[in-house]
């Protein structure tokens, strides 16, 4: 998946597991950028009685590099606090939850937002902000939309925040991809063939926990300017999200003692980098490092294992890819440096020649009036890998890129195989997953209607 359970250690710590990161110019507030970091993979909507929640012992961060040095310039930190309103019941709720202050809601979470700007003292932007409850069902959360809407908070300076459960926006055919790289629509061509079939969206009935923040662009540029020129380096930001835990944790009876600095245990920039590019033996280490340390992993991007597997798994389908031995400068640009000017007409999101897995957004590119989930590959410069929108088809884009469809951007001598522009897992955004306004991911599915998988 994008980054769900992508590394051995973090797969055992779902509360701190970054699953997806999105960054895009807000279509309904184009003077702002929306940043969304998702955590806790594969939430079954009916997953009670102790429903999914953020970790009180986790530091969640969304981090922006705005000057091309691959280091943190603006960081939004989120810390959560859980309160049990009624210590004498085992129930999450003792009646319908009609509002965020309902006495029937027993286990509530609030959070704080702190901004850390390089060279400045940390600024507490807000505290005591309410998360919504999870979506349980028509008796417990009868008007879930109102609960979720009440959990959208306006902060000073034109910032909006939301933290809580949402519907999973990432779509992928997990069952086939993890079965030796099978893609159902093309599995008749697989090394172990079966009849071609439509893709199966494995995440369509799942929820996620979302931290979303909408920020005026001027608070993200290095000099407070309004980005209007796509060719201007100041228009581009690099974004990653992370989760950290305290260095020391000791179990003390039913509680725990924690001490020491925050240690990063998960991070995410571009989708699928740690998942399908970094070797398993290095995935935990990758999660512990900042993007500025990614130079050591550049070779895995330039010579991705998956590009070597495709011609083996689909014999005779990718002969040109099989014969291509040069370092993949296209993938390095897309994932590690940003795309320089002159590669894609009217677009660049280059930040640095030094490799760093950052989700790069050119904020001067306006939102698309007719978005294409294939993003830049589909001719829509407002989509991935120019940032990433909630509905962008990251799986198809990256499979096609790895298959060679983007090589001609940097190496005109290469002719992609015919399949490179057609290969896909057969899933799509579908309906009901997204909304047209903040936080853009739809209300979570209710457990009553969608039992846990």
């Amino acid at each position: 998946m994008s980054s769900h359970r992508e590394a051995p250690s973090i797969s055992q710590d779902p509360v701190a597991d970054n699953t997806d990161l999105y960054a895009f110019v807000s279509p309904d507030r184009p003077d702002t950028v929306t940043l969304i970091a998702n955590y806790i993979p594969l939430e079954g909507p009916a997953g009670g009685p102790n429903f999914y929640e953020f970790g009180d012992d986790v530091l969640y961060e969304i981090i922006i590099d705005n000057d091309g040095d691959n280091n943190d310039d603006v960081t939004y930190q989120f810390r959560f606090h859980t309160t049990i309103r009624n210590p004498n019941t085992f129930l999450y709720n003792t009646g319908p939850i009609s509002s965020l202050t309902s006495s029937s809601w027993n286990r509530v979470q609030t959070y704080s937002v702190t901004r850390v700007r390089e060279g400045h003292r940390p600024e507490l932007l807000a505290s005591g902000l309410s998360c919504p409850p999870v979506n349980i069902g028509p008796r417990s959360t009868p008007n879930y939309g109102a609960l979720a809407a009440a959990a959208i908070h306006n902060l000073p300076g034109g910032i909006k925040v939301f933290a809580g459960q949402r519907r999973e926006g990432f779509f992928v055919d997990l069952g086939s991809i993890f079965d030796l790289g099978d893609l159902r629509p093309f599995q008749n061509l697989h090394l172990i063939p079966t009849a071609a079939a439509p893709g199966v969206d494995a995440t369509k009935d799942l929820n996620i926990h979302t931290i979303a923040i909408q920020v005026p662009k001027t608070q993200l540029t290095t000099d407070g300017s309004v980005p209007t020129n796509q060719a201007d380096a100041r228009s581009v930001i690099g974004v990653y999200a992370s989760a950290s835990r305290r260095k020391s944790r000791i179990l003390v009876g039913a509680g725990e003692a924690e001490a020491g600095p925050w240690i990063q245990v998960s991070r995410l920039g571009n989708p699928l980098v740690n998942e399908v590019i970094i070797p398993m033996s290095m995935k935990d280490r990758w999660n512990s490092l900042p993007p500025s340390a990614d130079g050591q992993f550049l070779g895995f991007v330039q010579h991705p294992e998956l590009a070597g597997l495709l011609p083996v798994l689909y014999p005779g389908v990718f002969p040109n890819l099989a014969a291509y031995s040069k370092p993949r400068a296209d993938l390095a640009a897309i994932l590690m440096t940003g795309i320089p000017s002159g590669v894609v007409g009217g677009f660049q999101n280059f930040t640095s020649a030094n490799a760093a897995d950052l989700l790069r957004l050119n904020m001067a590119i306006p939102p698309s009036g007719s978005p294409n989930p294939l993003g830049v590959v589909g001719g829509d410069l407002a989509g991935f890998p120019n940032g990433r929108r909630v509905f962008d088809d990251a799986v198809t884009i990256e499979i096609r890129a790895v298959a060679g469809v983007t090589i001609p951007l940097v190496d005109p001598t290469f002719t992609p195989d015919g399949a490179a522009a057609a290969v896909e897992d057969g899933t799509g955004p579908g309906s009901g997953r997204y909304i047209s306004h903040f936080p853009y991911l739809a209300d979570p599915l209710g457990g009553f209607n969608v039992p846990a998988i």
Partner: protein
Amino acid sequence: MAELSRRTVLKNGSLGLVAGVAALSGIGKVMSISGLSAAEGEPDLSAVGSDVVAHVANASTGDVAIMVGTSEVLHRDPQLVGRLLAAARQANREG
């Protein structure tokens, strides 16, 4: 002392001991300080306001990492580390 190496925490600002050897790379705010064991007089056992964890980071050099709050300092004190290791050996024997 049987649980010394795993779970012993003296609450309210006392010392939790985790014996072992670990590389120190990646430690954020490490300062090398020395001479703390030379403090004279009665030890100050008053609470410091949050949990304190000490990790024997390098037994051979007598380095102990002291974590409190979100800080971590590296304290080089072979005498202290020696006493900790002696306690750890005893715990191993009794465990």
